[in-house]
C-alpha cells in the first residue's frame, strides 16, 4: 500500500507497471488520473492551488486504502495526490488498484476516489480572470460516496 502527498508530478505509467509486476497473480490494474481542467463551472482556470493538512491527509488516505482492501479482494493500491500550485492539464491525483480480477479492482478504485473526494483533507483555490476563490464542495460528491454505504 503506497500513499504519497507531494508537490512533484508523477508518472502514471510507472506506478501501473510497478503494481502490475509487484505481486504474483495480478490480472488487472485499474487506475484513475485526475488533472486540472481548463474550465470549471463556466470560468477559465489559470491556476489551481491545493492545500492539505500534513499528517492528517496521509492518515486519511491510508485509512481509505485500508477500507478498500478490507472490502474487496484486491492485491495492492497506490494513491498519489499533489499539493501546491498547478496549471491546467497538470496532474492532480493518481489512484491505482491491482487485483486478480477486474470487477473488484474497478470497484475499489472508484470507491477510493469517491472517499478521497469527500474525506481527505485537501482544499482547492481557483484562479480565474475574476481573481481567486476557494472551490465549494459538491453535493454530487457526497451522493457518490453515499452509494457505497447503501451498497454494503
Amino acid at each position, binding site marked *: 500500500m503506497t500513499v504519497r502527498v507531494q508537490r512533484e508530478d508523477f508518472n502514471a505509467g510507472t506506478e501501473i507497471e510497478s503494481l502490475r509486476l509487484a505481486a504474483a497473480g495480478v490480472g488487472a490494474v485499474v487506475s484513475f488520473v485526475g488533472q486540472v481542467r481548463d474550465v470549471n463551472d463556466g470560468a477559465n482556470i489559470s491556476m489551481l492551488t491545493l492545500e492539505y493538512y500534513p499528517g492528517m491527509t496521509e492518515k486519511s488516505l491510508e485509512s481509505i486504502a485500508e477500507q478498500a482492501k478490507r472490502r474487496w479482494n484486491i492485491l495492492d493500491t497506490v494513491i498519489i495526490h499533489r499539493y501546491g500550485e498547478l496549471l491546467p492539464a497538470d496532474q492532480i491525483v493518481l489512484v491505482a488498484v491491482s487485483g486478480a480480477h477486474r470487477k473488484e479492482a474497478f470497484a475499489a478504485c472508484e470507491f477510493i476516489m469517491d472517499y478521497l473526494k469527500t474525506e*481527505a483533507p485537501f482544499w482547492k483555490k481557483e484562479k480565474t480572470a475574476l481573481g481567486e476563490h*476557494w*472551490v465549494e464542495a459538491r453535493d454530487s460528491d457526497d451522493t457518490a460516496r453515499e452509494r457505497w454505504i447503501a451498497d454494503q
Partner: protein
Amino acid sequence: MIKVLYFARLKESLSYSTEDIALPPGVTTIAGLMQHLAARGDAWSAIFTGKQVRAAINHTLVKNDAVIKDGDEVGFFPPVTGG
C-alpha cells in the same frame, strides 16, 4: 494547552494558521471550542457562524460533540475539495 490549526478559507480569514491556547474552563467539546472562539468576534465569529466548518482531533475527522482533552491537536477547515 491545545494546538488549534486552521486551513484554507479559515486560515486566510484569520491570516494565520495555528495557535496554542489553554483549554478554556467549561470547554469540553468541539462545539464548545467553536463557541468560545466565535465569541472573539470579527473574523472568528464569521468563520464559526457562517459556512460549514469541519473539525478533526489528532488527525481524525470528528463530529461537534467530540470531546477535547488537554494536549490535543484540533483542526478546523471547510468541507474538502481534493481529487
